[in-house]
């Protein structure tokens, strides 16, 4: 029985209550105080997101400058509770348009109460789909889909939709120009040893879509992933074109995707929700193309001097380039003076983060760039303590590049009225946690 919450609180960083909503009576009213006293104002904060105080369990997560706290007294379903919070925040964001922070909450607290009332009843999550909720809870907050007053937009069969029978798409949508935007966003996670061997590497990707389509269209997406291609070649009884096929370790889909058809026919077919949504997520561990190689050498010369050399190579296509490259090269806390030379971009010592921050706005493919620095340290009496070197961390974005090699082969839109659509596809690879030990 997955009760997700007995009460939900939104607190600011000081612990002031912004929103409180009690769903069940099995937790007392002074739960916020317990949370403030035992978690927020202690060193416990951040050590574990699930804590038990008295007979109650607290799940909390921080989102920008707000803590969201769920309190339960029974053996609740934690994963469900956290997912609920995340989904609820997404819902709020889609209402406020972007930011979710203390100010947004203060400015919209009535709306949030309205939503909290709808999305959970007596501790059981109800309908959280923004599409449906927006039909009857609006920013202006006056509309009822059932009211007899004329509204500017006809809402056919709203009752059915409110309770989620067709969940994600409204009927009767009309667009002058039918467009689909598809973004493949990948983030590369890397952990490399100081000797240059890859300890751990994977890519988590997601396919984001924005659909502005008339009616109830059926979409079909073809990727160059292994299972899909094999299936296709089987059907057409000819070998697939030579080219890389990608093996996806694991895929998850938006609820609109027909999973039965995916499993039997290996095609991603779906009736998309209106507007923006995340179509699928995947993970890849084999055959990852790392966009950057980093070769660090750090020498400690005596007690007060260090020599740092970092070479960064871009290994993606020469016609492409990376944007917003940031390389954080760690230096000891007692750094006194640095002199840094770089072959491109800018680098300087950042005292608050104890690192040399090297920024390169645009980094073309198949090139390399180096940083060489001399670091002088304050000499300390406690000379014995050696410096533990944190890893070099890197941030970047490479447009039109996918670390997995995944490509969209086709995107077909079919609707009974047979209109033409324009499809836009973009690729981008970002750094997830890209760490190189030194």
């Amino acid at each position: 029985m997955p009760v997700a919450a007995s009460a939900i609180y939104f607190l600011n960083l000081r612990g002031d209550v912004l929103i409180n909503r009690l769903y069940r009576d099995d937790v007392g009213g002074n739960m916020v105080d317990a949370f403030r006293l035992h978690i927020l104002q202690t060193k416990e904060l951040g050590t574990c997101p699930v804590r038990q105080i008295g007979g109650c369990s607290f799940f909390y997560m921080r989102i920008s400058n707000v803590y969201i706290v769920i309190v339960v007294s029974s053996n609740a379903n934690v994963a469900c509770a956290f997912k609920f919070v995340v989904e609820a925040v997404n819902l709020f964001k889609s209402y406020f348009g972007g930011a979710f922070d203390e100010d947004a909450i203060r400015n919209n607290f009535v709306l949030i109460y309205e939503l909290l009332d709808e999305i959970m009843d007596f501790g059981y999550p109800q309908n959280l789909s923004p599409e449906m909720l927006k039909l009857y809870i609006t920013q202006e907050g006056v509309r009822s889909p059932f009211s007899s007053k004329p509204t500017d937009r006809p809402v056919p069969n709203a009752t059915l939709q409110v309770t989620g029978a067709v969940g994600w798409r409204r009927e009767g949508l009309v667009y002058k120009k039918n467009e689909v935007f598809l973004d493949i966003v990948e983030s590369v996670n890397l952990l490399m040893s100081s000797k240059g061997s890859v300890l751990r590497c994977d890519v988590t990707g997601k396919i984001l879509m924005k659909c502005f389509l008339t009616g109830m269209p059926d979409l079909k997406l073809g990727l160059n992933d292994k299972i899909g291609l094999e299936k296709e070649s089987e059907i057409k009884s000819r070998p697939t074109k030579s080219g890389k096929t990608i093996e996806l370790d694991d895929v998850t889909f938006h609820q609109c995707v027909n999973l039965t058809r995916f499993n039997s026919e290996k095609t991603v077919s779906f009736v998309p929700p209106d507007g923006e949504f995340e179509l699928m997520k995947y993970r890849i561990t084999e055959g990852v193309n790392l966009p950057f190689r980093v070769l660090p050498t750090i020498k400690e010369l005596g007690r007060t001097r260090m020599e740092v050399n970092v070479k960064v190579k871009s290994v993606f296509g020469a016609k492409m380039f990376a944007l917003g490259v940031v390389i954080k090269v760690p230096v000891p806390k007692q750094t006194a003076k640095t002199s840094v030379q770089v072959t491109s971009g800018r680098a300087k010592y950042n005292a608050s983060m104890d690192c040399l921050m090297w920024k390169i706005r645009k980094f073309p493919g198949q090139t390399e760039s180096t940083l060489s620095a001399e670091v002088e340290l304050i000499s300390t009496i406690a000379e014995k303590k050696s410096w533990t070197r944190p890893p070099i961390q890197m941030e970047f974005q490479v447009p039109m590049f996918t670390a997995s090699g995944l490509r969209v082969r086709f995107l077909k839109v079919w609707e009974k009225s047979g209109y033409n659509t324009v499809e836009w596809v973009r690729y981008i690879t970002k750094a997830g946690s890209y760490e190189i030990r030194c």
Partner: protein
Amino acid sequence: MAPPAQSQRSPSPSQPSGKGEVSDLKMQLRQLAGSRAPGTDDSKRDLFKKVISYMTIGIDVSSVFSEMVMCSATSDIVLKKMCYLYVGNYAKYNPDLALLTINFLQRDCKDEDPMIRGLALRSLGSLRVPNLVEYLVGPLGAGLKDGNSYVRMVAAVGVLKLYHISVSTCLDADFPALLKHLMLNDPDSQVVANCLSALQEIWGVEASSSEEAAREREALISKPIIYYLLNRIKEFSEWAQCTVLELVSKYAPPDSNEIFDIMNLLEDRLQHANGAVVLATIKLFLQLTLSMTDVHQQVYERIKAPLLTLVSSGSPEQSYAVLSHLHLLVMRAPMLFASDYKHLYCQYNEPFYVKKLKLEMLTAVANESNTYEIVTELCEYAANVDIPIARESIRAVGKIALEQYDVNAIVDRLLQFLEMEKDYVTAETLVLVKDLLRKYPQWSHDCIAVIGNISSNNVQEPKAKAALIWMLGEYAQDMQDAPYALEGLIDDWEDETSPEVRLHLLTAVMKCFFRRPPETQKALGSALAAGLADMHQDVHDRALFYYRLLQHNISVANSVVNPPKQAVSVFADTQSSEIKDRIFDEFNSLSVVYQKPCYMFTDKEHQGPFAFSEELGNLAIGVDDQRVEANDEDLLLSTTRKEDSLSQQTQGALLVSLDHTEPAATHAQQTNSVIDDIFGLGLSSSPTPTPSPLLKLNAKAVLDPTTFQQKWRQLPVSTLQEGFLTSQGVAAMTTPDALVRHMQLHYIHCIASGGQAPNFKLFFFAQKADEPSNFLVECIINLSTSKAQIKIKVEDESASQAFAALFQAALSKFGMA
């Protein structure tokens, strides 16, 4: 809208508590109450917002209750919602005022707009005032039959709310039956899901007191209902799917084809974007295949990828929740995850709670082939800036070393840690080296060489200090300056705050004395003197004990302090396997995160009077707690403990089961009877048992609780029947013990029992005389109806009938003797 809560942020000195503002509000509301002028709604809205925001930040605005109610006559939905929220919050503490709202809520429940009907019904249920429930019954009944699914959806949960306010009102109105009807027939999936949630909760509680409810609860997991829900699974919202999957995981399909059908149907759920659905599916798969070892293993392989994806996506909090589950699975079957160890490497920026779980998993999956990589990785963490993580990593390295893979290399690494010369690293390493030496005395040479160089001044933590002192005493002959190091420590006796260290110091000096008497004599003298003057009872006692021992006979003292040491080979397991199995059964809940079964952390009062259905697990709690403590103290079982457990094993399983029963204080009485039974004392006056012509049972059958629980879980129910107790039987049944003794005469042994009159629950087992085939029985006795519900599970199906008859016969004779 101006954020009114701002006023609280910088309260003006004249209105510190907002009291003035509240009375202002009251005035303004009153003025608006009767007004029908245009624009009234807008000003009302602003005022309502203020009220709600005060309410949120904790200012008591209950004084404007009547004004709020007066203003609530409006057609504006938002105003209504705010008013409902306000009323729901304060009604409980102002029941008299709440009566005022009933009228308009009831009227709204009949509104032509389904939205308003639904909202009003929801608020009506949220009033939580016991003496107003009579007003709730009518609207709820109407709501359940409403033509609009939104209203029905709200009404279904409303029934559950009513149940929590007043059980009898809810049951008298026969709402559960209505819910059931709705669940099976409503076209709207959310209505179905809400009915299901409500019914599960209601019947779950009711089952303990009403047989009908118990039957209904069982019926929920019957084939037709399960299939009905499964066939519609895709219509449900993601959250409702979790509810359904959770229910299905309790269903036990009669044959393997059905299991495969269900798994095939639900396999795509593992690809769902909602992690909660994926976890619920995983639970279902694991539960379904428990009895099919090979398929179970395949399930592990299948769920690995989705789990790892969930771990690496989403916020750290979400991945923590998932990691806890992965942790549980890894601990159950480390070999299956051995090749995935790289997924468990920590990232630099991950929070502590994630890293800690990962470290534990890395430790668990280490085997011959990956130890080198894992230990190398762990050594990286040991140099981490984050001290707790560094400590955890060193402990992990130690644990792997104790597991015997490639000890040689690991010892070298541990010794390297000591060379890092960081206080906390040294401290952790010392403790580990001590444990290693106890298990592998052959390494003493290498270790001692390094340990000897450590100055005790650099070691501050009591545990580490104690470890160092232990080694100084134990290896006094190998360490040149051991006596002098000890002497130095004894000189600082007064400054030593930890009694643990002082105790170790006493023992170490004694050991050292017998190995190098001339050098230690002085130190021993001052240690004993200091010990005798010590304020701590244990330290004082130990010093006195040593002193007298030495006085009495030196060689005896030597053999007491310096007995020949055996290498320690047994590890204390943190948790008994019963506990682990229970946690596994509660997959996808808090139990997994806390790593303990739910009865250990949910409140007693939530368990209700029928909590003893948890009996088997309970028996193990005491034991477990002790072990956990012991484990905190020390990684290794002390030698004496080990010997204890060895002797227990040799003496047979019955003693073990005794050991399990003992700690539960409430079972003291029962324990006595068990002891009687073990030694056969209770049997002396007993008549010869009636032998069954068909089936002979083993009089001295043994079965430990773990095996019992395992078997109970695995086996299907072979016989389900109702037995009757004679009136004498009812009279004799003052405690479960009476029946336990009686059944013992028939060679049916009790393994656990509990409960209070009139409800008792007992678990029995029996074995065939000629072969090791077990019969397991769960027997629930209700004295008020003199009925006994008997559930029998057998290993040998052919003997099932005979045993059932025998059990029935034995039971019916209870109280006749």
